[in-house]
């Protein structure tokens, strides 16, 4: 009758980690491309560009991970990114007489705040609607997906907004620090904080609990409504930050080209082992899940795969990666 309570060893934990196998897939991919074109793939330059081009999506995906763990979804992130970029760029421009290219750090800081607040506002709206009204998250965020894009177009009168401060784009956008792009450092910081909060804090624990059984979470006294609002708020704010990062990187607030950011983020999250039905998942998995398609696309361009074959090849590897991951995990459980 004495409880036979054992803790798992580190090795068991590592082997049991849901992310091990998908990490392996990523490594194999890099190895294969590296073997095919060692001169072009395994270079600092390719590493730098792959990282930097994925930084924005990664930030979006960290927020998305939280949302999906609560068994929600956020289709609006791409549009919120656009909206935040537009408001931020336009604010900076108007502070600097219509063209902020020569503006200083003060203006940039205000731009950052505007981007974050814009993102947060949409996130708050999403959160309130999802948490308080019982409207499915898919519908709410499909609505804000359209609305945020429309609002961005309305404000910018339908065209891209330029005039991004050079200090911003030269430092955050393309600057590096000991060879690591600054944009990547920022994304890594966000990711690390996101992973820690999810994995070790009360906030993270409640996120899992709500996704696992919302009714149970409510009954044990977790403020489910408030928590959901916070989660969508987080996703929105990160989308705002992503908008600011995109501004720095592309030197323009582009209102097109972010239609599929939502699906890309969702795919990364799910690829990383987070269940669409909520309750399980991790930020580390998301990182891996975001990089797999990025590495693939990059690799195919470098190796020179025919453009029409590229989506097919990406699809095959994507599905195969998850398949491998799934059957490995199942085998581990059967062990």
């Amino acid at each position, binding site marked *: 009758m004495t409880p036979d309570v054992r803790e798992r060893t580190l090795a068991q934990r590592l082997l049991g980690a849901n992310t091990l196998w998908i990490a392996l897939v990523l490594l194999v991919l890099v190895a294969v491309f590296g073997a095919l074109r060692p001169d072009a793939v395994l270079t600092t330059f390719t590493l730098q560009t792959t990282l930097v081009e994925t930084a924005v999506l990664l930030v979006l995906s960290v927020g998305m991970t939280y949302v999906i763990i609560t068994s929600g979804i956020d289709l609006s992130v791409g549009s919120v990114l656009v909206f935040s970029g537009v408001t931020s760029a336009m604010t900076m421009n108007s502070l600097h007489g219509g063209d902020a290219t020569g503006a200083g750090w003060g203006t940039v800081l205000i731009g950052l705040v505007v981007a974050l607040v814009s993102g947060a506002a949409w996130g708050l709206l999403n959160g309130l609607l999802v948490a308080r009204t019982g409207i499915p998250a898919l519908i709410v965020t499909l609505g804000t997906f359209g609305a945020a894009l429309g609002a961005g177009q309305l404000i910018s009168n339908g065209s891209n907004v330029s005039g991004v401060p050079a200090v911003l784009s*030269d430092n955050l956008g393309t600057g590096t620090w*000991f060879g690591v792009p600054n944009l990547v450092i920022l994304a890594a910081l966000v990711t690390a904080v996101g992973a820690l909060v999810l994995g070790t804090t009360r906030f993270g624990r409640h996120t899992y609990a709500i996704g696992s059984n919302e009714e149970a979470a409510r009954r044990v006294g977790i403020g489910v409504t408030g928590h959901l609002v916070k989660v969508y708020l987080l996703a929105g704010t990160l989308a705002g930050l992503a908008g600011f990062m995109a501004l720095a990187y592309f*030197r323009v607030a582009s*209102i097109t080209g*972010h239609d599929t950011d939502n699906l890309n983020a969702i795919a990364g999250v799910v690829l990383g082992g987070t269940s669409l039905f909520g309750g399980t998942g991790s930020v580390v998995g998301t990182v891996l899940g975001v990089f797999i398609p990025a590495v693939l696309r990059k690799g195919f361009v470098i190796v020179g795969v025919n453009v029409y074959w590229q989506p097919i090849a990406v699809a095959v590897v994507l599905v195969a990666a998850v398949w491998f991951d799934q059957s490995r995990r199942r085998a581990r459980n059967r062990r």
Partner: protein
Amino acid sequence: GGGGQIGDTGGSGDGKRMVLIPGAAAEPFYISMECGFREAAGAKGYAVDVQAPAKFDSTLQTPIVTGVLANKPGAVLIAPTDDKAMAGPMKQLKDAGIKVVEVDTKLEDTSVAVSTVSSDNEQGGRLAAQTLAQLVGDKSGSVLVLNTKAGTSTTDARAKGFEDEVVKHPNLRYVGQQYTDNEPDQAASKLTATLAANADLIGVFATNLNTGEGASTGLRNAGRTGSVNLVGFDASPKQVEDLRAGVVQALIAQDPATIGRTGAEQAIAALEGGDVKRDIETNLVAITQADLQAKEKYFYKQKC
């Protein structure tokens, strides 16, 4: 002390190779351009490669540029999908010693490319309005622009040119533009809705292939083919066929093959130390049923 810029680590590449990065895969416009490019570059013994983004979109084109950069070709011909967003990546090409030639579209920053070969989209829009006015004659009625997505620089320029010109014709009442998300079914739906609200519609300018196809479908469903003048942009085979069949009344065609050929020539000149011309404008023409035969050389190709 660790500051720097991405791509600080350079190297040298293969000077006998050229890459074309069009704005989008699978468009007859860019395919025709590719034909001209391959022909001209091949004639001078250059190895060629074409890497197109799936859609006309700077976020999709950027990784292609950096991917191409990793391979270090001698020259890159590129149709930048955004006049500012592509500046960063393209500057990296230049910094790596690659000769950059802009084709079709161009950056706002003129210091990156050695040469720009393009046709003026705004000019094309103006031409569309003039052609429509000719087709309509002295009848009066409403005209509509079906545009793609807000923020798409090329089609926005076409719409703007049209808008600027159409107001000069008092018999044409401009009812504004509708965005279609570049989806034919939305174009059809928005056209029929406009027809329902403005029974006197006599002209439509569709700013690209998809809006044109949607517009002709909408007109056909409404039974108004021919009575509403449809002016399309570009001259892909299907569009030409529609023009021939009277579904479309006029097309504004660019000359992509010449753009591609000229672009290749400029790149070779830059690589081999020849004469490089900074800006080259190619022709835009309006094709109607009347001069269909005469302007055959402007038709776009599906494959070389």
